[in-house]
């Protein structure tokens, strides 16, 4: 293991550390001309001068962890790819950004698509892949457009295609548009979708590294993960580790939205707290106090004002009972009803449940029905227990993480704001007999 090189004191990084976002202010930052002027494709030359094994080792040493939510070490994932090439290898980029609150990959692909393309070429070389797919959410049309233009430019400049920069390495990149399904952000559902099927998750194992796209060895990585790679190649693993924490190194794009004065994208070292992020975002809007927030999208259990100083890295968020997720920080003030917000999120999961497994398909349906009834003022005190019971039957019993994510807002909402749910029930106690849950549809 590499020794940690982060130390507080004179080496403490700045509150905002633009790495992935450092070109975004440049005019036409998405063009190859701008990219090449700002260190673009220098990492590729360096990488092609080394071996695939060296690159896998570098990414391992950097401690780069997957930026799509799960935080799996990227270098370790790469090392699962077989060393031989009995079957073609594929690199697939998960650009199906759709987790509520998450809005980091889309601005990245719009502002700096070449960083993703360069990362794809380096990662493909490291994993001996000759065809890379970028699966972009269909609604992100402007990203698809910019990526296609970037592929075109990179090909014309010799960074893509056959015998890249005279190295003998060949790579094609295909930009593929999705068609509107949150579940396709799940890596095996994404692969099924990319194969032209309904986007439904596959049983694991076999994991994609053994049998992924077309049953061939495949690695699926998030956009931000792969876009980080050229910087790691140029700066080295020790440089990467000057930001973030020992187990969660590097910078991360925090997307701050909701009731703050200045919402936006802030690239800060992993482990930054909400208190620090709020300062960057100009504080709570109109001075109305914070009520609840998510550290990384709606699938990560909510936090409250008690959690302002939780370090937002993979360990910190998990230690406080949530998950880092996609660092999609949604901030809600005192004016927002928690049961209402939870109902809205649950309607989302009901709509996006793919229908493959019963706990998620049926569970999200009933959760939505009960929550809608409660928010309409017709809840019963038993509803809270029923909700928790259904959640218990979904969590860990669903086929994929969508079901687990669906219960997060409900269980955390009841944990911190049970009184608000109870208040909806009290309203009903004064009126007539409850309607049956599900009677709304």
């Amino acid at each position, binding site marked *: 293991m590499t020794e940690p090189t982060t130390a507080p004191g004179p080496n403490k990084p700045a509150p905002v550390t633009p790495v992935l976002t450092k070109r*975004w202010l440049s005019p036409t930052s998405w063009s190859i001309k701008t990219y090449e002027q700002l260190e673009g494709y220098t990492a590729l030359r360096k990488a092609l001068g080394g071996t695939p094994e060296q690159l896998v080792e570098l990414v391992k040493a950097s401690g780069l962890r997957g930026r799509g939510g799960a935080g799996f070490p990227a270098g370790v994932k790469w090392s699962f790819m077989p060393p031989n090439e009995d079957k073609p290898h594929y690199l697939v980029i998960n650009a199906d950004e759709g987790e509520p609150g998450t809005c980091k990959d889309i601005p990245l692909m719009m502002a700096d698509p070449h960083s993703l393309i360069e990362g794809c070429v380096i990662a493909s070389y490291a994993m001996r892949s000759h*065809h890379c797919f970028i699966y972009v959410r269909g609604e992100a049309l402007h990203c698809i457009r910019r990526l296609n233009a970037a592929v075109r430019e990179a090909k014309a400049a010799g960074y893509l295609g056959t015998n890249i920069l005279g190295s003998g390495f060949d790579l094609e990149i295909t930009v593929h*548009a999705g068609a509107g399904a949150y579940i396709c952000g799940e890596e095996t559902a994404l692969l099924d979708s990319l194969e032209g099927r309904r986007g439904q998750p596959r049983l694991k194992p076999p994991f994609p590294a053994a049998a992924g796209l077309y049953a061939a060895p495949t690695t699926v990585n998030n956009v931000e993960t792969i876009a980080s790679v050229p910087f790691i190649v140029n700066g080295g693993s020790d440089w990467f580790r000057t930001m973030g924490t020992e187990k969660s190194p590097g910078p991360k794009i925090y997307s701050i939205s909701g009731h703050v004065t200045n919402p936006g994208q802030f690239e800060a070292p992993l482990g930054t707290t909400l208190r620090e992020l709020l300062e960057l975002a100009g504080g709570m809007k109109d001075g109305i106090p914070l009520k609840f927030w998510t550290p990384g999208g709606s699938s990560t259990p909510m936090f409250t004002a008690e959690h302002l100083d939780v370090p937002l890295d993979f360990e910190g968020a998990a230690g406080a009972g949530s998950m880092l997720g996609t660092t999609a920080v949604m901030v809600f003030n005192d004016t927002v009803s928690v049961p209402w917000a939870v109902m809205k999120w649950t309607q989302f999961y009901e709509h996006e449940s793919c229908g493959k497994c019963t706990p998620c398909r049926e569970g999200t349906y009933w959760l939505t029905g009960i929550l809608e009834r409660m928010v309409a003022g017709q809840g019963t005190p038993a509803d809270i227990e029923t909700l928790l019971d259904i959640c218990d039957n979904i969590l860990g019993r669903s086929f994929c993480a969508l079901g687990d994510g669906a219960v997060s807002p409900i269980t955390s909402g009841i944990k911190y704001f049970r009184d608000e749910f109870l208040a909806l029930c009290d309203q009903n106690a004064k009126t007539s007999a409850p309607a049956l849950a599900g009677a709304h549809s």
Partner: protein
Amino acid sequence: MSSTGSTYGGSGVGAGDTHQATVRDTDVLGVSPVPAEHLVAEYVEDLGVFDPIVGKAQAIITRYPQSRSALLPMLHLVQSVEGRVSQAGIQFCAAQLDLTAAEVSAVATFYTMYKRKTCGEHLVSVCTNTLCAVLGGDDIYKALGEHLGSDGKKLGHNETAGEPGEPGSITLEHAECLAACDLGPVIQVNYEFFDNQTPESAVALVDALRAGEKPAPTRGAPLRDFRTAELELAGFWPEDEADYRATVDGPSAAVETLRGAKLAEDRGWTAVPYPDDVPLPEVEKK
């Protein structure tokens, strides 16, 4: 005697005649309310409308190691012709990819972006997921539904104001999180972003669309129509170089997107500079 034999695992329990074997067959055709010829005959649509896109459909297939991967883009392609995925569109894709219509249909009905009813000239999608909703997305959706409705009836989800496909017609939908939360509430028109909307600005936007105007999106290419967007999703871009660059160079640098980078620039904050000459790590040759 039994055709069912033993159960999986070798047990004889439950072996014997099935229920189905003990009752008479139902005369399905006899009890069907649908005339027999519609049940048994495979109905083949006239696919002539797709003749001009056969070349494009074949071009999509060449992008992939296996042809079936072309299905999602091809469904976008048929939407660029008809403004929806019709039975004919499904049969066209099936024929191009050597799939059954049932296989294509199963896929087409799974994804939200494939529309079963013909869309208007423009598709207006309002994000009503929690964060946008709390910032005004629900109010925007309600205001648009009322404004675009007629005869005292609100325009509902996936309904169209005006004659579908005709100039000025608008299909309205509520959408799930559109991944622009720092810019909420957001609307997309033909998947181009209109950020930081209000009910008033949204109403003005659809009025402009109905009047045949093409308001500039906050982020995205100059506005065209839904069918052109679908053609782009299928991977076909303007052939004229100037037009192409105009779409690619459409704006994207929202204040919110650049907020952190700008703050860092103003305060002189940077990441630690790279060390000089960092070699790739040494690894043992295998």
